[in-house]
């Protein structure tokens, strides 16, 4: 089995995730001599971060230079560079006695808050020197904020931290793994990934028993985000047959994959629904020409011949693969109507192998489950929901986040089985057998 270890450090020609103090994220390709622009957070030369381990944070200096820093962006109090700010926070904290932690004096800061205008920020940027701009803006904000002294100590702290994060010229470079790629699209356009949450993706991969060496049958309407997640768990070994409903598959997200194109080509075969369901009609008739015939061609004809030949081989390979069937899992992430889709694809799944279907909405999977209860080729059809509920993890002020993203999707799971043949069932048992069958189907 081939094995491709996951990268742990920033390398040329990879895509990675840049996390900004504003909690924004950005995908960046590590190209030699490339310059990355992070808007108000500054610009830097990618060469400077190559070789650093993923998870490393940097401060942007002048002239596109960076300096590695300790700790992460969100725990700036641990950062020794922030002494003056730390001091301010410390001072606030000392004033904070337990029972006075109250919002009695907290006046609604919604619209009333006086924020800096973009113009003011630009002025500050010009008057302060490079890296200290964050500090300068925070000072200005404290002074200008009418309600600041009325806020509780805790909310003052929170406010400072928020402002600070918004203006510090820092970033963290992270591995662009499957969870990060999902997160990127969820923030950019959740409909592209059918609103799938990280926890639903994780559950899908486990329920589908994904591992190196598996052969999986996949429908993926997320532009390849699921295919990428599967490849990440397979790490170079195994095969995917991706079925799609257009002439060509949409794998636009795969361009961010950190697998080489050759690996992807080797592992990912694509086929459309027509070719999949009517393989014999769709097989490309192809006969290689003789070596002599090829040599006699004009070069443009020759290229055309090879293109057609490759295409025929690719399609026929995929068709052979589909005809062979016995896949180690069926994974559907699609907006096609799943009750009929599942029913039509079961035949291609190997015995005892999982069928996992994701849907943004519960209702189509409810219908899938109702249909499946009649289908003897599916064992234990189950509808799963999983939701991650994040907490505010400040010691002494633990509570679930007040708001969080809704949605996240649902998963249907069943096991492909081979029911007893009707003939076998009938042999000398008749009604009694039937009754017990009914009873058992309540259990299972």
């Amino acid at each position, binding site marked *: 089995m081939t*094995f491709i*270890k996951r990268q*742990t*450090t920033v390398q040329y020609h990879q895509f990675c995730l840049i996390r900004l103090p504003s909690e924004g994220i950005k995908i960046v390709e590590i190209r030699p001599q490339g310059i990355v622009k992070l808007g108000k957070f500054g610009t830097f030369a990618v060469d400077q971060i190559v070789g650093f*381990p*993923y*998870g*490393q944070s940097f401060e942007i200096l002048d002239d596109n230079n960076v300096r590695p820093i*300790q*700790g*992460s962006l*969100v*725990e700036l109090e641990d950062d020794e560079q922030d002494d003056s700010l730390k001091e301010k926070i410390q001072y606030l904290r000392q004033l904070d006695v337990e029972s006075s932690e109250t919002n009695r004096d907290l006046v609604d800061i919604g619209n009333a808050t006086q924020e800096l205008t973009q113009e003011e920020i630009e002025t500050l940027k010009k008057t302060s020197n490079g890296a200290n701009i964050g500090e300068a803006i925070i000072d200005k904000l404290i002074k200008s904020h009418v309600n600041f002294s009325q806020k509780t100590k805790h909310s003052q702290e929170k406010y400072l931290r928020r402002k600070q994060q918004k203006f510090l010229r820092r970033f963290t470079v992270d591995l662009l793994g*499957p*969870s990060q790629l999902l997160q990127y699209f969820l923030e950019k356009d959740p409909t592209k990934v059918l609103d799938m949450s*990280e*926890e639903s993706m*994780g*559950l899908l991969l*486990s*329920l589908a*028993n994904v*591992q*190196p060496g598996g052969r999986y049958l996949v429908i993926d309407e997320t532009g390849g985000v699921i295919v990428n997640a599967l490849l990440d*768990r*397979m*790490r170079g070994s195994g095969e995917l047959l991706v079925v799609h409903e257009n002439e060509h598959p949409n794998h636009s997200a795969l361009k961010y994959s950190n697998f080489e194109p050759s690996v992807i080509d080797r592992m990912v075969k694509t086929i459309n629904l027509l070719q999949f369901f009517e393989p014999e009609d769709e097989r490309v008739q192809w006969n290689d020409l003789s070596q002599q015939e090829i040599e006699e061609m004009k070069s443009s004809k020759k290229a055309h011949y090879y293109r057609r030949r490759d295409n025929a081989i690719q399609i026929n390979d995929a068709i052979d693969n589909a005809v062979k069937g016995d896949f*180690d899992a069926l994974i559907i992430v699609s907006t096609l109507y799943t009750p009929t889709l599942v029913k039509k694809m079961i035949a291609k799944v*190997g*015995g*005892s192998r999982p069928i996992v279907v994701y849907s943004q909405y*519960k209702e189509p999977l*409810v*219908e899938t*489950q*109702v249909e499946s209860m009649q289908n*003897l080729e599916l*064992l*234990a059809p189950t*509808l*799963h*929901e*999983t939701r*991650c*509920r*994040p907490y505010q993890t400040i*010691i002494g002020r*633990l509570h679930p986040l007040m708001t969080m993203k809704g949605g996240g999707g*649902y998963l249907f799971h069943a*096991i492909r*089985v*081979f*029911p*007893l043949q009707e003939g076998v069932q009938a042999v000398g*048992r008749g009604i009694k057998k039937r009754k*017990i*069958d009914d009873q*058992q189907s309540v*259990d*299972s």
Partner: protein
Amino acid sequence: MSFIGYKDTIGEGDLVLAFLGRDAIKPIVINKEETLNTRFGSFPHAQMIGLKYGTQMASIKGYGFIHLLQPSAELWTLSLPHRTQIVYTPDSSYITQRLGITAGSRVIEAGTGSASFSHALARTVSAEGHLFTYEFHEPRFLEAKKEFEEHGLLGTPVTINHRDVCKDGFEISNYDGDVKATSVFLDLPAPWEAIAHLSQVISQDEKVGICCFSPCIEQVSKTLDALKEYGWTSVQMVEIQARRWEARQQMVRQVDDAVLRLKDVKRRKLEGIERKRRFYAEHGQPRDEDSEQEVEKRKELEKEETKVDRTEFNPFGRGLRIKDGDEAFNWIKVSKTEAEVKSHTSYLTFAFKQATPSSTT
């Protein structure tokens, strides 16, 4: 290795999960001399050999059946007797995903417990990775070790240790090489005691993730303190709230049909009154001088002649046994959770430790 890789056909010595029902999955090791006896009948192992995984098998007497499944980590978890120590799939899958565990990962797990998560981790890290699992409780350690051995996981990719990691740390002698863990999972009553010992065994070359799994919120507080003290960052605690939904069908009972039914009831009632009226008009009032026999006869007659047609308008099948989805009625597909839901497993506290930059430049 029953849990890593795939197999199509059942063979002697295979671990097979006999599926009797959702809450009755029985692991058996195929031995052609043996027979599986269940409430659904007897199933000789010898007849299983050569069958495809996934086959539905009838009992010898033919009046019951089971499905023969290939083990997977998730099915294995379902096959375990319900105990609080089990890390169920919604939690284990999220921890795996969030810590970025994949083939080749090197994972520390303490304690091993029921070894249900161990099986899922072994599957995911695969032969290229490694799982270092620690168990303090000797009977459990021995049981888990035996299990790993039987399942072909011991050595590759699993190393198990009988050890109190809170007191004695994670360094081990029964493994050739350094642990260099890239992910850590602590399912211990006092994870904060174990955190101190981690620096010796985690990888210095890459970002390392940890997840502490604690049922009580007070344990989370202590864990947060310890993580901070030992330099872990990006700390976040979450809960996984998972539900299983069950689909069923509910009859669509239209108000118009209910009104028509009441009309029908009324019609039948009025018809009865009308028949009675007609009967009396025809036969007159009973007279005091009628003999007992005549009274009896008249009653019989009245009953007969005033009887209203039994066929009633019954749009919702009252009094009948109707199967969900019966085509004579309209249905709406609905869903509900189980009667008793798992509302809490544990709090999951995640944190990460940055690689030491010196080693990389």
